[in-house]
């Protein structure tokens, strides 16, 4: 009984880029800045592809919500081994108010529409660090969730998932369908090779809008301001140990 997987991918600012705040202090500069697929989403795609290679999965649909450039992210996922793509178009101007709740609603609707067995996401996106989408999607669908997954195995009844938690590793079992989110140690993603990149150009990608899925785009959160972390202050040189102790006392770090 081969499964169908829906993988979510987000186009984010590349991890190596130095982030700069926009002059209006309501966001960061994205124009002309290098973007790439969210690293945790790469891991999610890789896991789906490995499941397909192990014949557990027979179709991988990749979905990305974003402006026109989100197509690059979808093509990368197709080059890694996904079968077809869905591009949910969000105009560039709306990207600032497009939030995880909207994504969750889109994913939930698509999961039902495409009748998938697994929704596979990255555990968080490296731009907002929200770590909400997988959980909210599961909740909207009323499906079990296996988030922060570092190992996923198929069982007769569904899935066995090892999760990374604060105290160590937790093993859970879920039925299918389920929503999963990939943690860092789940796998090491492959690089897209040229022949696969060329093949990916021929794979089908369907475009749609959130309205087509009946999703209301009104923001629930308003960004008030975005600021740099405080500039590091110059250190003070102390002349000897007594001086150091005195300064520590002054600043309230030592009562002795």
């Amino acid at each position: 009984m081969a499964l169908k997987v829906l993988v979510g991918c987000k186009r984010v600012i590349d991890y190596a880029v130095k982030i700069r705040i926009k002059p209006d202090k309501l966001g960061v500069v994205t124009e002309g800045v290098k973007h790439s697929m969210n690293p945790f989403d790469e891991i999610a795609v890789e896991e789906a592809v490995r499941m397909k290679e192990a014949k557990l999965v027979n179709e991988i649909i990749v979905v990305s919500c974003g402006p026109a450039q989100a197509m690059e992210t979808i093509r990368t996922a197709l080059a890694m081994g996904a079968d077809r793509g869905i591009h949910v178009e969000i105009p560039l101007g709306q990207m600032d108010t497009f939030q995880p709740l909207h994504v969750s609603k889109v994913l939930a609707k698509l999961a039902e529409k495409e009748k998938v067995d697994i929704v596979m996401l990255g555990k968080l996106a490296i731009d907002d660090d929200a770590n909400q989408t997988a959980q909210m999607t599961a909740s909207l669908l009323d499906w079990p969730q296996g988030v922060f997954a570092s190992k996923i195995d198929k069982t007769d009844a569904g899935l066995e998932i090892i999760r990374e938690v604060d105290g160590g590793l937790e093993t859970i079992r879920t039925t299918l369908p389920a929503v999963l989110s990939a943690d860092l140690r789940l796998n090491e993603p492959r690089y897209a090779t040229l022949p696969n990149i060329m093949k990916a150009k021929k794979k089908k990608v369907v475009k749609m809008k959130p309205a087509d899925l009946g999703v209301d785009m009104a923001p629930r959160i308003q960004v008030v301001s975005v600021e740099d972390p405080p500039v590091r202050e110059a250190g003070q040189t102390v002349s000897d140990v007594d001086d150091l102790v005195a300064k520590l006392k002054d600043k309230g770090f030592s009562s002795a």
Partner: protein
Amino acid sequence: MRGLPQLLSRAKRVRVGFSASEPVLAIQAGILQPDKFTQTFVQLRGLQSSNVISQAPLAAVADTDSGKQLRQELETIVGPGNVSSGESVVLQHGQDEGPHQGKSPDIVVFPSSTEEVSEICKICTKHNIPIIPYGTGTGLEGGISAVDGGVCVNVSKNMNKILQIHQEDFSAVVQPGISREMLNQEVRADGLWFPVDPGADASVCGMCATGASGTNAVRYGTMKENCLNLEVVLADGRIIHTAGIGSRPKKSSAGYNLTSLFLGSEGTLGIITSATVCLHAIPESVAAAVVGFPTVQNAVDTVVMTLQCSVPMARMELLDEVQMKACNEYSGLSYPETPHLFLEFHGSESEVESQTETVRDIAADNEGGEFQWAVQQEDRTKLWTARHRAYYADIALRPGCRSLTTDVCVPVSALPDLVTATKADIAEHGLVGPMVGHVGDGNFHTMLLFDPADPEEFRKCKEVANKMARSAIALGGTCTGEHGVGQGKMVLLEEQFGKDGIDVMRQIKGALDPQQLMNPGKVFSRN
């Protein structure tokens, strides 16, 4: 004072630009007798070696008019924030990752464009100041050591752009601040990679300067096979393009092969300000394998047979039993302490499978032990952990020690004998010298460990290293396969090329750098 008579007799370049209060130059001109200050000063500047002729050292003259003028002229070119003579800055810029104690330059400048580099060279030429190019400081041969002081030109800090990527032509144009890992990260998404991997995350332009190579050379070549064009600034400030302006065809018969001349010139002919390099397609399928052998001979025989079967190996690394022990201890592994081959296969899925089969059989024919192999990315990473961390594993064998890393390269057939002789020599001298080899190229490195506080131990390491290099030359090989000559192998270079060969190099150097300002004291000795 030892050395001074030689200086006096060799007083060549007395510049009229300096005031007579420059004691050292004045001595050279025979005007002044050295007073006590100057004697000490000249000693401190390390002028006792007969190889070194003093330039006007800036640290001593920083407060003089000419020193201040030089600094001002440099600040005008690059901006005051991009000139530094701070102690930690100059210290960092004189010391690379090799065992040789580096000498700090007097001043470090951080240009932001090729034009600025050109202006800096013009100023240094005018004042007769040595110029030392600096990339990432990851070299192993003291190539950045400012033996005569001078101006260190750090071309990587501000000149750090990838200028062009040509996906369909498989080439990229990069500035010195782009390291090979940065380039790889950038082209990954296009299904491309830059295969020259010397271990360190070195500047690509720096790799051109040293003619670098790495674990993938057996299949993908060294920098020499992967560089199409270089933009170079000469000592007098002229900017040239070694294959033609903007040229990047796969082949050319146009003019002298200047690209080849500058590749591996170790900063002695000019400063590389951009490089056009070749990219390759990421292989469809990659498999890694590890197999142990009772002796090095068995391992090398396997390598020779594999090459003769024309198996297009991507990586073939030999780790001897001392290295395996170090790796086991450092990375918590449990390999048998015998020589091992670490292998990597690239190609389509079927090609990789058939290549792996072929080599497995050859290894078995040569007394090979268990043949472990892996395809998944993280399994391959785990399998290769031992090899990747080899250097750090060696240093951990004796915490606090440093390593004199040798770099001989011989025709593959000569490898077993040379390796056996070397291991015997290391044992005889009572040294610890783990061995890692790019056996597919006939190139191997021994990490001769020494206590930095024990000059006798260092001397023994040098003795073993020199003996190894001489044997390599006698066997039809070279004293340095990939690290370059720097300072440590100049004598060996002369033995390898003979007097006439070196004289031709000196003539070329003299033509391009008549004042002998570009990275003095490297590659070959001055007359």
